[in-house]
């Protein structure tokens, strides 16, 4: 260390001469300081990027939700600080609890079905059989289609009068169901579409998780006389736990913010029957002729808080299982 630092010190006569009263660099050796600076220099692009594209928008969103913005104060920038008033108003809004409930149902039911079907298919495809790869590729199609296309297709299929779903049901003697136009069914309709779209994601991740389980375990288990059911619940499922938790967390965050499918299929309607928090936030901010940025940001922040709570509890679980 000293070998390196001494020449550097002597090689920098200019600052020493210019500023004799410069004791600051004495604290750490200049080489160390310089190394640290270099390190910061390399970190700078990332730091600047994070600040610009993550921290600042987040700050702005919180700021929007803590002030009372109108279109006029949006231009002049002198919106008064109102503290948590927007949050109080949002919670008192008659749309709040229905949209919370819709969000909860939408997220919970979506994840349960996506995960169960995804896992079942992953286990199914893990066995080697003919056309396995081809079939598995087919299951990825929902993932590859642009959401606009799949959501529009679903909304055509669910059309009350001319949709294929109803004509199929009618063949079995079930009368017309107003999938998208009745408050009782609209959430179910968007749920079905969303589950279909989410299966490939779960399938792919769980499948890769299965590949990480050593086949010897299964051999040993079958020697011990374990049947298929036992092998799944005693070996596959417990060993998939790390993959499962991350899949569920990602699925949770993805589903929480689902917007396009619902917007294209029902616009959150009829009335508020399929309005989730994400839809509501959009409606407030951009859905009418008069944008209400503060309320929209407030609902957005409620979403962020929910995601944060689940993210933190995941991190905690993770730490506990590692410890």
């Amino acid at each position: 260390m000293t070998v390196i630092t001494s020449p550097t010190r002597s090689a920098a006569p200019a600052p020493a001469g210019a500023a004799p009263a410069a004791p600051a660099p004495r604290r750490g050796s200049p080489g160390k300081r310089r190394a640290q600076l270099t390190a910061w220099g390399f970190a700078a692009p990332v730091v600047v990027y994070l600040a610009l594209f993550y921290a600042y928008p987040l700050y702005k969103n919180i700021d929007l939700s803590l002030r009372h913005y109108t279109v006029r104060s949006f231009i002049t920038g002198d919106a008064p600080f109102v503290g948590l008033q927007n949050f109080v108003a949002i919670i008192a809004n008659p749309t709040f609890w229905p949209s919370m409930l819709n969000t909860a149902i939408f997220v919970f039911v979506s994840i349960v079905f996506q995960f169960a079907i995804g896992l079942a298919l992953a286990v199914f495809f893990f066995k080697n059989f003919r056309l396995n790869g081809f079939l598995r590729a087919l299951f990825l199609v929902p993932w590859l289609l642009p959401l606009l296309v799949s959501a529009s297709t679903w909304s055509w299929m669910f059309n009350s009068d001319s949709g294929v779903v109803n004509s199929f049901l009618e063949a079995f003697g079930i009368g017309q169901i107003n999938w998208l136009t009745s408050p009782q069914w609209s959430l179910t309709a968007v749920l079905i579409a969303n589950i279909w779209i989410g299966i490939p994601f779960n399938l792919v991740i769980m499948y890769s998780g299965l590949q990480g389980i050593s086949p010897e375990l299964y051999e040993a288990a079958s020697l011990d006389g374990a049947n298929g059911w036992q092998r799944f619940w005693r070996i596959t499922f417990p060993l998939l736990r790390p993959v499962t938790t991350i899949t569920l967390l990602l699925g949770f965050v993805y589903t929480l913010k689902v917007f396009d499918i619902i917007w294209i299929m029902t616009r959150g309607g009829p009335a508020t029957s399929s309005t989730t928090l994400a839809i509501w936030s959009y409606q407030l901010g951009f859905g009418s002729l008069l944008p209400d940025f503060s309320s929209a940001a407030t609902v957005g922040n409620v979403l962020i808080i929910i995601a944060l709570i689940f993210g933190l509890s995941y991190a905690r679980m993770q730490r506990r299982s590692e410890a």
Partner: protein
Amino acid sequence: MQVSRKARAIGVALLTAGVAATALTGCSSAGGSASGSTPSGSYTFWDPYPQYDATSAWGKLVAQCGAQAGVTVTRTGYDTSDLTNKALLAGQQGNSPDILLVDNPVVSTLADAGILTTTGENGLSTGAIAQNILGAGVVDGKTYGVPIGANTLALYYNPKVLKAARVDPKSVTDWTTLTAALAKVKAAGKKGITFSGINTEEGSFQFLPWFWGAGADLTKLDSPQAVQALTLWTDWIKKGYAPNSVIQNTQTTSWQEFQTGNFAFSENGTWQKAAAAQMGAGVITIPAATGGAAPVPTGGEFFTLPVQKDTARYKTTAKIVECLSQGGNIVTTDNTLNYIVASQAGQQAQLKADPTLKTWVDAVGVAKARTGDNLGIKYPVISQQLWTAVQKAETGSASPSDALKAAQQAVDAKLTK
């Protein structure tokens, strides 16, 4: 070794500075290229017609009007729904375009935000524009822009379906005769009427002719007249005169239903007239409850002049807008855009060239601006509650009177806040 170390440090410093600089210039180019700094002789123009490029008739006209005023006009087309937010952001950053062509109900919002100039400030002449169409641009007695033209709603009918059901379109003069016609059509095995009752601004737009046609007022959503109008719609759905899909229909999907040829009537806009002529459909004005043409809401954009730092620009800008919005130019423009001209002289010129426009000229004559009656920025709040009430009643989750009562309460709560 020293050299390489130094070089590395310098390199890092440069890199950091570069990142910081791009970040800074990124900010300053957004904030700094304020209107005043654009070289004189170049004027900016934003419109919601991205489908027209510089070689289109519209693009050429814009360039020509700029040339007449001795300047070049840089035109940018945005998506309609995008334009309001773009305009607000530009206003916030102080780099608004010289001319902004926006959807008429947005004018009062932008005026309230303080980013538009009045005709008193910019010297724009409103000429012979009909007062009812100009209404959307008037807030507190001040005019914030001029219409490019107007479109509105009417009832298209399918003569084949009506003939099979033995209904004479001329017999449809009020709500009773219309509902009777729908009953006959249904009895003949066809479908009655399709419209857009969706939970967006489009839904309010389509409901307003019936709302106003009953004599209801937007300041009182739960009036008996309003309930009467909403009951008309819900009864049609209940009786099967209108399909259940109207709850989710946009005006486009509603039109697609009409184009199947199974529907007798379709409430739709001026913009479909070419397609209607192609399928042989006729058109009548929407009847009011007790007869006569119902007041219909006006659609169409307004030329507005956003606030500039250099106020000397307004004079030239007004010249360009007058060139675009008056005289023979506007007749040609409105013909290509499927609009009705906002001045009577222009309407006469249009009628002369195409007598089939009569119904539309009549409809525009009794049309009302949604933000008119000095509602201004109250309109979006009212409209949102109105379409919510319409949705609740259509789906049967509330009776028309309960739904409208709740809507009025919500409006009161929002507007007094």
